[in-house]
């Protein structure tokens, strides 16, 4: 594969990742959200494999498989089981005004391009133009966590944010060293178990997974 074509494919996948990030911001249904998250993981996994092939970095194949196993299969499965057990899969949550959120999201994308422009100029890699998209994915995940009120959506926002970080590592540097990637994957897995436990605790205590309920700890008087 010549670098020209690889760069095109990479940009195309980056565009799709950004699209899934926006679709997640607009998605109201829990099931749809989890599907979008799985799609985003699949795009990342394919992208990582292609970058690994073009740049001849074989450890990226391991990262790619790890992403496939963790973010496309394991995490969406865990989330599906949790929402079925807790009977929230049909719940359509109240979102704070989708058009405004989308506008804020566009602002964040522009901001990401602005912020990463000095780095993109320095880089010689085929993947350099996607760093801005990676940062935008991180910020959109953050935005989702802020604008949503449901514990499960907050977690999906958090995982999408993590996807952005992974994307940044692949596009800025052809992936972090393997030991770091493995460690990060392990941390995400532990985090998944912890939030699974948490969903049950929150559900048992507050009889809902609406984070708004949790407002007992307030400042001072």
């Amino acid at each position, binding site marked *: 594969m010549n670098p020209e074509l690889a760069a095109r494919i990479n940009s195309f996948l980056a565009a799709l990742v950004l699209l899934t990030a926006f679709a997640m911001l607009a998605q109201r249904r829990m099931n749809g959200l989890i599907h979008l998250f799985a799609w985003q993981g699949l795009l990342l996994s394919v992208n990582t494999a292609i970058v690994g092939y073009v740049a001849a970095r074989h450890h990226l194949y391991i990262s790619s498989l790890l992403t496939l196993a963790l973010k496309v299969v394991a995490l969406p499965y865990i989330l599906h089981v949790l929402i079925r057990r807790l009977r929230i899969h049909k719940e359509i949550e109240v979102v704070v005004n989708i058009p405004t959120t989308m506008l804020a999201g566009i602002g964040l994308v522009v901001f990401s391009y602005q912020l990463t422009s*000095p780095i993109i100029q320095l880089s010689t890699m085929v993947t350099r133009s996607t760093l801005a998209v990676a940062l935008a994915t991180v910020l959109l995940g953050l935005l989702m966590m802020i604008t949503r009120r449901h514990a499960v959506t907050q977690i999906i926002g958090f995982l999408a944010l993590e996807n952005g970080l992974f994307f940044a*590592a692949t596009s800025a540097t052809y992936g972090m*060293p393997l030991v770091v990637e493995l460690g990060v994957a392990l*941390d995400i897995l532990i985090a998944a178990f912890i939030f699974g436990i*948490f969903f049950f605790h929150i559900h048992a205590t507050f009889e809902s997974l609406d984070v708004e309920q949790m407002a007992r700890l307030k400042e001072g008087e």
Partner: protein
Amino acid sequence: MTEAMLLGLLLVPLLSALALALVGDRRLAPEVNILGSAVTFAASLRLAMEVHANGSFIGGGKFFFVDAFNISLAVLTAFVSLTTAIFSRRYMRREREHGRVGHYGMRFYHAMYQMFIFAMLLCLLTNNVGVLWIAMELATLSTVLLVSLYRTPTAIEAAWKYFILCGVGIAQALFGTVLLYFAAERVLGEGGDALLWTNLSQVSGQLEPTVLSLAFVFLMVGYGTKVGLAPLHNWLPDAHSEGPTPISAVLSGLLLNIALYALVRCKALVDGATGTRHAGNIMMGFGILSILVAAFSLLRQRDIKRMFSYSSIEHMGIATFAFGLGGPIATFGALLHMLVHSLAKSSIFFTVGHASQMNGTQEMSRIRGLFKGNPLVGWGLMLGVMAIVGLPPFGVFTSEFLILTATIKDAPAAAPFLLLGLGVAFAALLRRVQPMVSGAPPPWQTPLKAAHLPVLLHLALVLALGLYLPVFLSDWFRTAAELLR
């Protein structure tokens, strides 16, 4: 020999965690916990002696790296975790008897306690910036469920907040690490070696300044959240006030230090690369803001543990400010401040835990007559507060005095803010503690067998450090300050 000690220092807590998870809530579990921590402490001391004799070294195939800066923090971590394990034996047993923690809770508590210590020591001793990040996340994850151990609505809320805010914060730090790797890879070549502190500090002059200053913003926000710096501190008072008291003691006394350690290493690197004081100035700004926000929040608190967690934010602000200011005196003061703050704050949390168990509440208005009720608890709290507000002859006075001197010399404009923060915190804490210790014990107070040793040992050390600084310690701090220039 040194390598074996290094390995032991990390393996003992890890194996203790496994053992405690397996044996579960047996009669001897707290003793096993103490034993594991004691062996860890002995290993850290032995390693410190090696470093004192032979200087810094790199071990385990460049994977670990020990110098005067991180070994002093490792000894401190091992020491406070030992005394906290001793304290938690009595404390948690009583919690168990009162039915606040169940069978599985106790098993989980002990195993995760050792896991937490392992994560913190790994943070300190690793040579790899990426592994440092992983260990920091592991430290967060191992304490999240400990904060919600009591399963009350407020505890779950606090733990959720801690999980989400620190998770997001530390994700920013990972982005900063990616950018750091991006800059390092161009100089050091691809692979794990490009993320080693020892390699990075050698080539800091050649790293791309624009990338590093951008990376530092992300690292500052990320690790700053963990240090509990304002305006990213919201998780801290909740997590510290709702979790079990031994966990509050190690969170305040140790975890905040570890996060600050990561930040300080990054700062030295970034300022070396850019040749400016960019990173230092950002830290000074966050430091001053934290001191002021925390000092004024102290005035409004009703919950005793919440109040002292604001005091931790204030002190972390002071240390961050001093590291940002830089220079031999300020850095020396900051290192000493981290040490004495850890000792004083954990001893305060020990006595606070006893005081709230005696009175069955954390509400300060319902805690009375501690001097008469239990002299050790009363005097422990009084002396601890006197130490933490910086009254001479305690060690906090020495470190704050050094930092103030350096501030007046190098950044006089910041001095009034620093003094204002210190003054307000001084008044707020002393005004609050006075009614709690004096007067007659209230009718709801129950007697309590307190854990004497940890409180007395910590206070004695803070006092001793104020009166006399041992030569090896000042040597270490001076070398560390030299390393961080």
